[in-house]
């Protein structure tokens, strides 16, 4: 489902974030990307999600090479992904409901369908009663769950989570990991970047390690 071939990323200024990374992630697989800070995890996630372009090499999603896509085609590729970020990237001037509704509005769903889907997603993450509140009033764990609701509301084929438990205490972190596991069980491909060894333990998922931008065997 996700194929990267010899991808490298060099940022302006000369920083080499990734060096010749080749990997393959199958459909329905759950994978952890690990490594220390600066290992290149976030960069790899951004390249897979089509947020940034690789300097060299190629990435294919379901056989479609990202480098072959035009700028105007990239948004449609991104709709196949659900993104979860360490810093949530929630819109604080919108309610919980409207934060989750955004991807559906972008995809052109009707108002009725948006309401049904948003409520279903909020129910899954246990925030249905808080749909009218502002995200500011939520705890850190709830904000992260809201971010997950927004990521899954479009029923994406691939879920990309970058340090999703980075700011959470162990109790909340375990809840979030359990949620990812549940999504994976229903067929969603899940890729989680983390530097937290405790998160990976006991899940039996594949682990891909990065060190200074290179893949570790």
């Amino acid at each position, binding site marked *: 489902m996700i194929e990267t071939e010899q991808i490298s990323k060099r940022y302006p200024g000369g920083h080499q974030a990734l060096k010749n990374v080749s990997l393959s992630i199958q459909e329905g697989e759950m994978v952890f990307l690990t490594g220390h800070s600066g290992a290149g995890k976030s960069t790899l996630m951004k390249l897979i999600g089509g947020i940034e372009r690789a300097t060299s090499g190629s990435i294919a999603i379901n056989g479609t090479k990202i480098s072959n896509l035009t700028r105007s085609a990239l948004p449609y590729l*991104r709709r196949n992904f659900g993104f979860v970020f360490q810093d949530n*990237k929630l819109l604080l001037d919108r309610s919980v409901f409207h934060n989750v509704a955004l991807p559906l509005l972008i995809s052109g769903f009707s108002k009725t369908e948006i309401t049904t889907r948003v409520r279903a997603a909020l129910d899954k993450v246990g925030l249905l009663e808080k749909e009218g509140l502002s995200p500011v009033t939520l705890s850190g764990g709830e904000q992260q769950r809201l971010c997950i609701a927004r990521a899954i509301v479009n029923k994406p084929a691939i879920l990309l989570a970058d340090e999703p438990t980075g700011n959470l205490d162990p109790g909340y972190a375990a809840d979030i990991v359990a949620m990812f596991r549940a999504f994976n069980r229903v067929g969603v491909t899940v890729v989680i970047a983390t530097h937290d060894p405790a998160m990976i333990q006991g899940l039996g998922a594949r682990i891909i390690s990065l060190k200074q931008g290179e893949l570790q065997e």
Partner: protein
Amino acid sequence: MNWFYIRFSAFSDSISRFFRQPITSLLHILGMGIALSIPMGCYMLLDGADQFSRKLNNSTQLNVFLTTEASDETVKTAQTQLEELFDGDIKFIDREQGLSELSKNPEFSELVANLDTNPIPHLFVLTPNQNDPQRLLSIAQIIENWTFVEEVRFDADWAGKLESFVKLSKILVMLVVLLIGLGFVASIFTTIQLQITIRKDEIEVARLVGATGRFIRRPFLYYGFIQGLLGGLCAVFIIFLGMKYGLKSIQPMLEPLGIFIRKPSLLTLAAPLILSVSLSLLGAWLSSNNHLRKIDS
């Protein structure tokens, strides 16, 4: 239905953002309205002067002054030659009649009474049947060369100069409109940049979840449209007020000059509105496109 819902959401969001800063928005609209109404008002004033100068040009006359020593025989010769040359009304004012008309003027009556001899020459006033300034000018040049003619005065001279002045002023007003238009685009560009900065996070998230450039650009275009529409309406309102109240005080001063400012037509009133909306949309499009290009690079 979805098509309408997506656009309606963006439009209502843009309206709510516009009224979230009522004073800033109001001042901006007022600034736009004043900036647009000034050149439009000047243009209407000049249009009145233009009508006047055209009217003057249409009533062009040639005044042919004979030499003071011209005899009655010479007058007859002049009359015959003019009738052969000129197609139009020929009016003769003899020197006695000229002097008596001058003496009717209180300013000159005393002066005329003290004159020993009559210094006023015989005069022919020629009014053409068809207004052709070029033809009239060539006739004037022929008449000037006759020995018994002292001077030929072409009355349309200053009217022509006035027309040129009005034309030049109109071009200047157009240039002012052009400059104001550029200022308009720059102003909207900056306003939208500010809106983009305020909504930076929203744009970033929207891009991550698959928003197209069109989707991201849409609320900013709507914002520019609302601002342009209200600014244009403000300009129309200022012009309307100026015509209704300001004109009452100016018109009596202009009437003796023969200048009548016409009430603006629907098209004249629509012009600032169309201009304002188009320029605002252009500014918003340039600004949002500029930002999209930056974040996509």
